[in-house]
């Protein structure tokens, strides 16, 4: 067991280093940060001086090692664009992304699972067909288009919801929350639905497929034969067996909700980490980009690690194999 965990943690560190390496290798092709840091009146000599100060004229490997070394000590440097420590910057943006992702995941779960069950049980119903069609749209339309359509309908035409931003936030220590104000909740609705749509569709289709499969199995047939009420068969026996893979997928998808929020955040000017990343690309803010990519990699690595450990705990066959 310990051996397994140690090996997984070692692998995780390797993944992080690789992500950092690839990211750093790519930054050389993003453009010239210096030009975004100075005005047109800054002389060549001053530009060169700045480049030297920031260590941008060092070879790529030297820059990479320096970055990793500092990052290991929790120092991600300073944002070129905002001239503030990156760790402080990301910490101030993280609550927005996490709240949005969390609400999106909840929406996806609490709408996706019932819709999946319903479409599996009432396969030929009109409502089922509607759900399936909507889910097809949810999967095939790009996120930014859905977002812009929502802004157009609910923000511009109906004027029910604010078309951008996070509304008023309340500061709880270092965490800023939009959950405690009305404008915070109103602002959350559109981006959360936009971000949830794809996941919701995924969960719905997964639940439906699993449920249909389980309904075919022998033990459901026997349950029927025993004369158990339909309700009990559906929810006690079938659903329970359906949920195992759903939980796994949902766990894994949480990482991608956080990572994919980039587009939703940009469309709705949601002040989270994804928007920060996009703004940083625009001005070649390498310290912020590097830190963000590492952080996302870290999220994925941690989630995967937890999932793996859960498997290990749940499935006895894995333990036997190791021995």
């Amino acid at each position: 067991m310990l051996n397994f965990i140690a090996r997984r943690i070692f692998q995780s560190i390797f993944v992080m280093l690789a992500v950092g390496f690839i990211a750093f290798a790519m930054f050389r092709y993003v453009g010239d940060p210096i030009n975004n840091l100075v005005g047109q009146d800054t002389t060549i000599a001053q530009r060169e001086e700045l480049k030297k100060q920031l260590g941008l004229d060092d070879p790529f490997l030297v820059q990479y090692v320096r970055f990793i070394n500092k990052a290991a000590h929790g120092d991600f440097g300073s944002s070129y664009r905002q001239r503030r420590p990156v760790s402080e910057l990301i910490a101030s943006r993280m609550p927005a992304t996490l709240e949005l992702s969390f609400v999106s995941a909840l929406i996806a779960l609490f709408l996706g699972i019932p819709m999946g069950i319903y479409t599996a049980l009432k396969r030929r119903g009109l409502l089922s067909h509607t759900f399936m069609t909507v889910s097809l749209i949810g999967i095939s339309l790009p996120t930014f288009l859905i977002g812009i359509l929502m802004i157009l309908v609910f923000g511009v035409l109906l004027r029910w919801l604010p078309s951008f931003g996070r509304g008023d936030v309340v500061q709880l220590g270092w965490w800023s929350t939009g959950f405690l104000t009305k404008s915070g909740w109103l602002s959350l609705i559109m981006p959360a639905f936009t971000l949830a749509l794809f996941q919701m569709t995924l969960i719905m289709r997964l639940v439906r497929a699993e449920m249909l499969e389980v309904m075919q199995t022998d033990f459901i047939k026997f349950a029927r034969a025993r004369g158990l009420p339909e309700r009990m068969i559906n929810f006690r026996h079938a659903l329970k067996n359906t949920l195992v893979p759903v939980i796994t997928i949902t766990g894994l998808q949480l990482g991608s909700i956080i990572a994919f929020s980039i587009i939703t955040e940009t469309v709705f000017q949601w002040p989270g980490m994804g928007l920060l990343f996009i703004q940083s690309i625009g001005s070649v803010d390498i310290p912020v980009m590097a830190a963000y990519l590492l952080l996302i990699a870290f999220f994925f690595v941690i989630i995967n690690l937890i999932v793996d450990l859960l498997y290990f705990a749940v499935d006895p066959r894995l333990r036997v194999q190791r021995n």
Partner: protein
Amino acid sequence: MKFSKLFQHTAIAATLALSAGLSHSVEAKTLHWAYQGDMMSLDPMSLNETFTLGFQGWFYETLAGYDKNLKLVPMLAEKWENPEPTKWIFHLRKGVKFHDGSPFTADDVIFSWKRSLTPGSDMKGYGAKAKDVKKIDDYTVEVTTPGPNPILPRDWTFLYIMSKTWAEKNKTTEATNVKGGESNYANMHEDGTGPFMVVDRQPDVKTTLKRFDGYWNKNMPTNVTDIVFQPITQESTRVAALISGEMDIVQPVPVQDWPRLQKEPNVRVLNEPEARAIFIGMDQHRDELLFSNVKGKNPFKDIRVREAVVRAVDTNVINKKIMRGAAKPLGTLIADKINGYDESFGKPYKPDVAKAKKLLAEAGYPNGFEVQMDCPNDRYVNDEKVCQAVASMLARVGIKIDLLAQTKSKYFAKVLLQAGNNTSMYLLGWTPSSIDADNSLVNLVSCRNPKTAAGQFNLGGYCNPKIDAITAKVESETDQVKRNALIKEAFTMLRNDYGYLPLHQQPMSWGVRKGIKVAQRADDVLDIRNVVMP
């Protein structure tokens, strides 16, 4: 008993609150404003960039500034004189207060000048315009310049004055450095003399400003009392926020949205020409072009080829088809709002396709040639489309353009001097930071000289020693009439040399809620002093 007492207290409190509210003679007017990005810092010396400086101009002020027509007007200096070619004397305004209540004096001017020369400053170029700044008395400073400088007040229109005592108290006597580390106090706080004070700053999210009651100029037209600024990155979201009424002013709106916005009853589009000249440059420096099928020679060194390029392009058509008629076609590198502009050299060249073909044949390219053109696609108004139009016009005379349009960070990383000017042809826009023609002559027209930083943005390496000699005279001529004559001479020579292909002044593009009066200043700065809300 207890209850009635409570009631009594409440009644008194309510009356007090009501009267306090009534005693405010000015009704609260909150301006909601959005731009595509945020200002980079509150520190006025950290970045020399127009949007950042324009925004900072609401809470910081300079000795001399611009009015809504980009005319130079007194601000913190009431008047100035130039008794000797290398000496300027500024007479400072009395009774001016900083936002923290401390008085403004000559010491603050000297301190700010010194601060502009500290390592983190991006305003070193402006600071270097003075050799020394001396205090004569509390309200008079004497500036000595390294050489004769006829336009010092103009050069310093963005050298903001900070409070010395405030900076010392908060240990921010040096400009915020890019390298950072610990945050500099001035990066997140301000203490200027301007009409508004920053009350809350969340970078990239929201900045809230409040009217400064102690502002010296009581005759300012604006009736705005509060400002909420929010950057909105996505163009469509920005436009939506304007139409939905959440925003009063948004900058910029996409040109293709103009017809749609004009149909909205509550919105109008402002699209005056900007002071930025857009032009195309050619590599006239290398003996062989880097990106062309012509080998062994550089066609752009031949004046006939350059004239052919200029004659082939009809900038009126580009204006009509791509800029919706809002650009101002131009025949030179400076816009009409720039000090020194003259119609005699500023009118567009007359297009002549037949002549262009003939000239190319004479120069030895009867079938034309191929060349790559670099173009940004997110820097100027419709930049990529403008490049495509130029390419198709050049194709008519046989010059085949291989268009390389890319994002500005990549584009500038390829074409700028520090990257080795890896370009054969490029599109660039230029607003002289001093709003004076001299700046364009030095940066765009002068032969490249690494020692003096002249020609730093002369990406094609155009070089005419005769123009350089005139530019040197412009730099030191303090007689404004003679000076303007020299500027005219230099630009006329450039025009006859077909050194550049000038295109137009691009239009600015602001979306404004109906009923709001706002002056659209030609440097694309929102001049808050002139915003009047209904």
